[in-house]
């Protein structure tokens, strides 16, 4: 049975597990707002468009958490704000504008990486490596977790009002635009923290899958964020352990565990699952048919 405790003997695994707890919970918690506001595709676009910012930062200040933040900031401003600007000032709709800008940013990033003084591995950016997580990455994740959770909990009421009915929130003096910008910034921060762990391509899984799973299981906003956090945390830890035991890359293992939970909820959720909807006792229609027999 020593194989069960084996991962905990290694320093790099203990650090990776701690990172999974922090990143998994924070992303899952924030994911509730992403799912409720239907921002999953915008988040996907943001994750890709961090590349040019990252390459620029690597050229200017080297590869470090500060550089990552700079990359994220570039993504947020160029894609989220720029997309909003293009959509509101032309006939192009939001999702088209965001897609157009993010793919442009991604192409620019790949071209720029060639010229970065510090070597940026594209594979590392796309897929991450949680086992190589450094102290500075852990501290960054920790700071981002605290900031994200505190702001989401503190602003829960205005956020819910703004997400549910923006116009009504505005009549109550809530600055809806500012709150949405905050969500976008928090998404970027969450992506920065999960970049090292699962990479840009898979970071969306940590953000969206836990909340989407809870959305199929429960009917309350509070349960969505806290439940999303718990699922994200356990899924990330389970995925990392499985990756160790099965000797597969950790990022894909984490996302596959979270994806399996989502599919299980889709199929077997007690209220909204497919299986329970098929098995639910038919009523009225068959009763009325009986009456005619």
């Amino acid at each position, binding site marked *: 049975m020593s194989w069960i405790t084996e991962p905990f003997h290694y320093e790099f695994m203990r650090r990776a597990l701690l990172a999974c707890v922090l990143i998994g919970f924070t992303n899952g918690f924030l994911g509730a707002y992403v799912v409720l506001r239907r921002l999953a595709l915008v988040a996907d676009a943001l994750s890709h468009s961090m590349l040019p910012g990252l390459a620029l930062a690597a050229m200017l200040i080297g590869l470090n958490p500060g550089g990552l933040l700079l990359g994220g900031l570039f993504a947020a401003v160029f894609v989220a704000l720029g997309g909003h600007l293009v959509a509101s000032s032309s006939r192009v709709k939001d999702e088209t504008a965001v897609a157009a800008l993010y793919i442009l940013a991604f192409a620019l990033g790949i071209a720029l990486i060639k010229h970065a003084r510090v070597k940026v591995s594209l594979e590392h950016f796309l897929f991450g490596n949680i086992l190589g997580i450094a102290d500075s990455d852990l501290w960054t994740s920790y700071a981002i977790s605290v900031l994200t959770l505190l702001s989401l909990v503190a602003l829960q*009421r205005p956020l819910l*009002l703004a997400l*549910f009915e923006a*116009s*009504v929130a*505005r009549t109550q003096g809530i600055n809806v635009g500012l709150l949405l910008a905050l969500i976008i910034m928090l998404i970027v921060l969450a992506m920065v923290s999960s970049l090292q762990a699962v990479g840009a391509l898979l970071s969306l899984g940590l953000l969206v899958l836990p909340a989407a799973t809870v959305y199929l299981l429960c009917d309350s906003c509070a349960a969505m964020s806290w439940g999303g956090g718990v699922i994200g945390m356990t899924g990330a830890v389970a995925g990392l352990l499985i990756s160790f035991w099965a000797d597969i890359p950790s990022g894909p293992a984490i996302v596959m565990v979270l994806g399996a939970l989502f599919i299980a909820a889709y199929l077997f959720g007690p209220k909204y699952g497919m299986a329970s909807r098929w098995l639910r006792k038919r009523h009225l229609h068959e009763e009325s048919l009986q009456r005619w027999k």
Partner: protein
Amino acid sequence: MNHDLVIEDLTVSYHRIPAVHHLSVQLKSGSCIGLLGPNGAGKTTLLKALAGLLPVETGRIRFKGREIADGRLITYVPQREAVDWDFPITVRGLAEMGRYSVLGAWKPFGARDDAMVEEAIHVAELEAFADRQIKALSGGQQQRAFLARAWAQEAGIYLLDEPFSGLDKNASAAFAKAIHRLRDSQKLLIVSHHNLADAGELFDHILILNGELVAFGEAAQTLTRPNIDRAYSTKIFSGHKE
């Protein structure tokens, strides 16, 4: 007579085109006012301006002698299409949302807040559905759930945008009963509506709009052939279509 909501020389633009021109009207609490007029007459624009969602170009709006800047005085119920019905929230959760504007972002719920929430559910006659998701309600119940939230907010003015659209006869009757109960509790209701046939029964006062004020007064005196013809058959202003 003591008027509560005083609108003076109000002009509001929608997408930079004036949609309501120089409207002056005085309304009393304890009345249920039907806002009628053809499509593009500025009904939604007027409601949004009263709710503070659109800037006022000229004129002023005062409630009980004060400028209405305080969102708590007013509750706005948008058209059904503007609501995300998949949002995970129950009737009680919706009524609790009404208290947010009273409590702010952090103040916890107290006994009075809980009582207001229960009262709101009672006023909307939704006790049996309090823990149901808003998606699982019928159209009429959904509209009443939003009234419950407005009641919990303790607002003085209720702005309802086409609440009767899509409701069948029974649901309309139940909704009318609910808004009349609010009127009898000295609330001021301004309700945009497009069906001329039942407006006389639903509202005690009628405001007919077509870019500018066509007529305002008690329902029986206002819903006359000449007024309706003036609003619907002539184009007073080439108002922007809403």
